[in-house]
């Protein structure tokens, strides 16, 4: 077998499209690659298979992405032909939302175009039926995924695929939801936790991310 990773990933003689792999290992997040936003904490987790831990404030969003400012957004992925894969876990049982798998065109403070796989935890005041996995997009109505509530706080492999006329969400290798239109703009990856109750933090861990154009 060739020693070349390039030759293993790409058909012989082809020019590779944009791709990156993030393994969330080390003493701190790579802040050359990632911008951080929000008033929560973002730190490598001192636990086996822990990866990066993102802890939101009790209100608001804490996020990593490729946009240090609105003017300096870096969006090398296609809104109509790209894939994002993550291995992530909503860690905090109470009040937590983790938007772990997102491709978006906007800066932290902006509204914009996006597609996300989201895990909603045990929000204060929400009924059991509102604890769920959801495919969200700026382009179509939210689609709830058919995964058991008992799976909310476990590690999962998520795959978000943006195609020319559809958006697909897979969890642990199973296609769980298909949405409509793709995003017109070029996009960047993002991962975040958020809370709105004002009484507890939202905590999530992520240990792998890969994005590539198709």
């Amino acid at each position, binding site marked *: 077998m060739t020693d070349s990773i390039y030759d293993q990933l790409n058909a012989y003689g082809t020019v590779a499209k944009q791709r990156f792999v993030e393994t969330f290992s080390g003493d701190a997040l790579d802040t050359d690659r990632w911008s951080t936003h929000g008033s929560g904490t973002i730190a490598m987790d001192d636990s086996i298979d822990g990866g990066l831990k993102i802890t939101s404030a009790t209100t608001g969003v804490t996020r990593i992405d490729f946009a240090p400012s609105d003017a300096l957004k*870096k969006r090398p992925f296609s809104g109509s032909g790209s894939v994002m894969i993550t291995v992530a876990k909503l860690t905090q049982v109470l009040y937590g939302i983790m938007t772990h798998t997102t491709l978006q065109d906007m800066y932290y403070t902006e509204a914009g175009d996006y597609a996300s796989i989201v895990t909603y935890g045990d929000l204060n005041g929400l009924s059991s039926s509102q604890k769920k996995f959801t495919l969200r997009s700026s382009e179509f109505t939210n689609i709830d995924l058919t995964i058991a509530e008992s799976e909310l706080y476990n590690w999962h492999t998520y795959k978000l695929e943006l195609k020319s006329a559809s958006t697909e969400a897979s969890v642990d290798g199973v296609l769980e939801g298909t949405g409509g239109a793709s995003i017109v703009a070029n996009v960047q990856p993002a991962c975040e936790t958020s809370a709105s109750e004002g009484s507890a933090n939202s905590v999530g861990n992520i240990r792998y991310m890969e994005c590539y154009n198709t």
Partner: protein
Amino acid sequence: MAYKQHFIEWFSGKQLPSYWSTTVGGASIIMNDVVDGGLKLYTTSTGTNSNFTMNFNNKRQYSHTGSVCQFTINADVQQASTTNWFLQVGLGHTVGNTGHWLSAKSAQSYFRLQTSQSESATYSADTTVANSPAWVSAKIENKSGSCELSLNGVLSATNDSGLQTSTGMQPNVYGNRGTSGSAGSNPLVCLLRYMEVYNT
């Protein structure tokens, strides 16, 4: 067999990682906010010999007689319009004069494989791939008695002269915008979206 030195750069993120050492003189190096854009190195001045370099600050972990350097590149040296514009991308001991590179140079119709022991001992071999702005996958293989350049999966040039004799190589990118000629204010541009280097 023990794993040998192996490095991958995805050129994805908000900025170039700080393990790269760079210099710019009338030039800029940025991540490109474009689909499949990767890293953009480009001149921002029309001043003679505006230039940029990118390397590992003389941390030479790769063998000049047994290593591979692969990258995807889009090079624009305004080939027909300029004087002494050049772009070298590959592995080398010393920026500009000792190493094995893909060469894109003004007045050259095709990309070349350039092997240089020194500025006075440089050999270049034409490929058949046009020296024009388009994405190309390149693979430089350093062997004990030769250096091979493959473009888009096809062996395109082989040099057995001018091979580096100094020990150790580092990744190297060097662009120089000579005089403008008819290029006007157009920049010299190098786009990279992948680089992999390993010892064999």
